[in-house]
């Protein structure tokens, strides 16, 4: 029975990562690219409003009252 290319790759990784479960998982992730998406522009807009605009308004009001 021939060995699938990714299995051979995993075997060679064995000495590098030193953990069979981790090696399998990393290889799987590299192959599938199973990442959740990055934050979108809309998400960043929410961060800017929550962490910059709202705080500045709070600080200005705190200064004036």
């Amino acid at each position, binding site marked *: 029975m021939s060995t699938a290319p990714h299995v051979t790759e995993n075997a060679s990784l064995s000495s590098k990562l030193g953990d069979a479960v981790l090696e399998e998982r990393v290889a799987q992730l590299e192959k599938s690219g199973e990442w*959740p998406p990055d934050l979108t522009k809309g998400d960043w807009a929410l961060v800017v409003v929550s962490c910059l605009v709202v705080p500045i308004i709070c600080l200005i009001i705190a200064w004036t009252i």
Partner: protein
Amino acid sequence: MTTENRERGTHAQNLAVNEAQQSTYPVLRRERTWGPIAFIAIASSLSAGTWLFPVGGAVAAYTPAWPGTLLMTGGMMIGTGLLLIGTVPIQAKFGVDSVTSTAPYLGVVGAKLSIVLVWLPIAAWNAILTIIMGRSVVRILARLGVVSLADADISKWGNIAGSLMLFGILLFTIGGADVLKRLEIVLAIIALIIVLIIFGMLFVKFGPSQIGAAKPLSPLPDHQQNYTTVVELMMGSAMSWWPWVGGLVRLVPSPRASLPGVLLGLGLTVPVVSAASLWSSLVANDPDPSVWMITVGGTSWGLVALILVVKANIGTIAINLFVSGVAANRIPSIQKRVRWSWNLIIMCAPVTVVVLFFGDTFMEQTPKIMAFSGLFYAPLCGIAAIDYFVLRRKNVSIRGFYDESRDAPYYYWRGINPVAFLSAMIGVGVYLLLLDPLTLEAHGPFKWISATIPTFIAASLAYYVGTKLVTIPAGRGDYERS
């Protein structure tokens, strides 16, 4: 397939998911079992710990109630923003914990050194929270007339009660992330109800005018310095979430799904709950919770507040244990040879020793622990943000997080990136030039620029320059792929 086989398959899958969540392995998207709502509850439950009492009490020294509440909110949310850009995009995307996420900039061996930055503050806080929780339980029992103890005995029996409760919490945490999720959701609901009761009692007894008119306890002569000190205290509190964030957001399906939990749970909950402590400290003219709890509301109030303390600390200690157990798994010999339950017992052992034998001495060090717990994280967040977004353009190697071979992407020099360590030291130096974290004595332009923001900027700029001048020309750090 028979029902029995299907059950066996599901059980095996659950075990694999548990193993991934409790290890430092990257958690796959399908294994992340905390949804956005659950994460808000978990993060809020973590935030609503007893540590918020000293925060509100400290702010009461500088500002009256209404400006103080606004400054706490503003400072906390600015700090949460700085924390967020240095942690969530990379940790929630790749499903890695706080320690592992430092490998691209500290180096794959350097990342292991950051275990200290995770474990030490969490263990210290667990000891403090266990002591407070145990003493609160003994006080509740004494107040209800169940036991009769002298003040001196409350400490001793409180420490013993705390240790026993720590063991009980340990049993919950052994159940893994899903048991933790169910526990924290219940605790978050209880916390919300109790905080509403406390605010209700404050308004009924004192009213907004009396709360608003209460003078700060020991303000500085400079108005601007008072305000900046409060903002700085809150930014420091936000940065001190660094050890926790990775251990939590890696169990949430995506960076986007993490946002509400981070912004509302770790961010907004802190000033909201701290406001109860701030207002109470102001009207009681004393920042000590054990004093204002009784002064403000008498026995019934004290009882409610003590129950809140116990509830809050159970939730916080459980999450602390889980996160420190995950961090310890970064050490391969622990991950491979030590079972999850024993890992947590090892995490608990030094805490129990401190609580049982050095409880009083340790409690006296609380202000120093608070002061230093946020000092190192602002530089790390600055370095992480500039490394991930600017220098690597979000292009990191998942293999590199774990690969310790000489030709590994993040091997740098013997596994350590000296540029990152030097940049972090520059950041800490800038902080210390602007503010003494122990005495809160400010220097130079602190009152205009604070300490955390320049620290964040200085460390990230130093890292950028060092990487461009040293690391990239030397062909280290895998920057050529970006």
